[in-house]
């Protein structure tokens, strides 16, 4: 009833604008996803599994210019990063300073960076890291600042939480 008489040009323009916005929307989701995707890099200073490179005696490595981590031969450490492309700077003790860029595949949460291969310039230095599922840590007894004490039943791990409006059913006597 708003009686909006929309001229054809306007209608076309609106269709285009809305279509573009939809595309932009989806694109934004993708962008947030790719940019914000978190990865864990295992910085590995061991012999490469295929024997292509030997562990380095001592080195210090810095990802994206963060505080360098010192690694002795056979040691591992982790770095948490966001996004795919990263700059890695390795200073090998008494050796060269290697600066390299690595790219982590989008789908991988956990990758292994073989520093010896990186230093040796072998590709790929980054490989997916297959892990067993870590057993979930026990639920922290976190409380919602809003809700404690919770008027509903306290949530029991593993059981369906009770919501207000549905009291915990009395056990049948």
């Amino acid at each position, binding site marked *: *009833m*708003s009686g*909006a008489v*929309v001229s054809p040009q306007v209608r076309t*323009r*609106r269709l285009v*604008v*809305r279509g573009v*916005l939809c595309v932009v929307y989806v694109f934004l989701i993708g962008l947030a996803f790719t940019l914000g995707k978190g990865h864990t890099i295992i910085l590995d200073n061991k012999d490469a599994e295929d024997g292509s490179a030997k562990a380095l005696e001592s080195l210090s490595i810095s990802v994206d210019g963060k505080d360098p981590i010192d690694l002795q031969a056979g040691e591992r450490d982790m770095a948490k990063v966001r996004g795919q492309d990263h700059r890695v700077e390795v200073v090998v003790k008494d050796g060269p300073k290697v600066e390299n860029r690595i790219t982590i595949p989008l789908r991988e949460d956990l990758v292994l960076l073989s520093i010896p291969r990186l230093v040796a310039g072998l590709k790929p230095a980054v490989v997916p890291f297959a892990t067993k599922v870590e057993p979930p840590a026990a639920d922290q007894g976190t409380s919602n600042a809003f809700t404690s004490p919770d008027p509903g039943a306290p949530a029991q791990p593993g059981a369906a939480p009770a919501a207000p409006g549905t009291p915990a059913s009395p056990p049948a006597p």
Partner: protein
Amino acid sequence: MDKDKPVLSLQNISKDFYGNVVLADVSFDLKAGEIVALVGENGAGKTTLMRILFGMNVIRETGGHQGKILIDGEEVHFESPFDALDAGIGMCHQEFSLIPGFTTTENIVLNRESMRPSLLNDVFGDRMSVLDRADMRRRAVATIAKLGVHLDPDTLVSEMPVGHKQFTEIAREINREKTRILVLDEPTAVLTESEAEVLIKGLRVLAAHGIAIIFISHRLHEVVSVADRVVVLRDGVVVKDTPVQGVTVRDIASWMVGRQVAADRADEGERGFTEEILSVSHLWVDMPGETVRDMNFTVRKGEIFGIGGLAGQGKLGIPNGIMGLFPAGGEVKLRGRPVPLNAPREALEMGMAFVSEDRRGVGLLLEESLDWNIAFTAMQIQDKYLRKVLGGLFKIRDEAAMRTLTEGYIDILNIKCTSPKQKAMELSGGNQQKICLAKAFAIQPDLMFVSEPTRGIDIGAKRLVLDALHKYNRELGMTIVMVSSELEELRAICDRIAIVDEGRVTGILPPTAKLEAFGLLMTGERVSPAPESAYA
């Protein structure tokens, strides 16, 4: 534009509600810049006619209408009031259709605001446009100027005097660029006299701008002063369509009420009553739309006392006030004993009963059975239809007694229903009315108020209802005070008829008095030298 060509013409409009004819072959024309007054008693068909003109749902739902509506010579079919608005017809209803929290400006341009498109229009549509308040105000001021009244464009409607609300409402209608025809339903009813004068002046200005106006009013002196032509409706028929030039208020009044049927009244001559049963003095009642201001009259034992008058003048307030349903004050005595006001129970206990005009709202328990409806009041007031159970521990409803009672009334009043257990809402209007009467009869009152007993029911049922009242009056000596907008039925069964105007009795006439006299009393023109001024 050809000045003499009608902008609107109604041709042979007829309408019936389920066989109940309310409009028969109504035709009249409206020319640009002309003010036509449409007058008639309540129920003469004015409202229905305007509803047809506006394509309201009610009309279509009840089987449509016959006849044609022409605008600028072309036939139109309105599916909804919005079509009528688009065709350039504006209407101001009796009830204000304004938004209280909005200013004059916002109301005048309601849903037609000036807008500037915003960036989001292309995303979410036109409603994301930003209001152009400066332009809205400019348009409102222009419209107010056109109407020639004084209105502050920035006052909130809720803080306005009533007259300004009326002006705002009219301004909104003429703010539509297309509006060429304006229908005003009782625009002066809520105005003071000086405001009414301003309004009438404004209407003249509008007419001069070429807007045609249909002016519906009961204030005949206004009709005479503002209209170019007067169309009188009576019982759904145009009885007069004449230029106002040379017509007097008295003429119009007699056209309005003048029936040929001299009320098919069994002539019993004047019945003699002596004993006074009810006396009312200085009664005021705060009933919305039916304010009683200063009512004085007495009712004698055994008579049928009629109270007539136009809608909104306060006649309905009388029984509602005496029976305690609306805040009231003053002095009411029944058989010399003062009746406590604002106390329904006491009024009932003193031996009065009331059949409300608001059948569905007050008169009935629509979702309950007939026996409940009839027996309830008697049970509550007089402890009837109860029986003891559990050795007298409880007294519960005596369903059998209620059934017998109800069956009795179904029989006496010829109520059409499937059983006493039928739900009240399933009955037709006439039969519902009989249930209301039965409820009042069941408490066997000495004095019974009956308010608009025939409103909204068909002719056959009207007859039965009036006969029932007549019978109870004659056979049981029940005093009846009957309030009705239909003068004819008052004249048919009443012994005396009081006419109410502006919350006061303007005169009491015998049913045999001349129609013209009734008409004048109703429209506030005093027959006898005016008793204390009307506009005190």
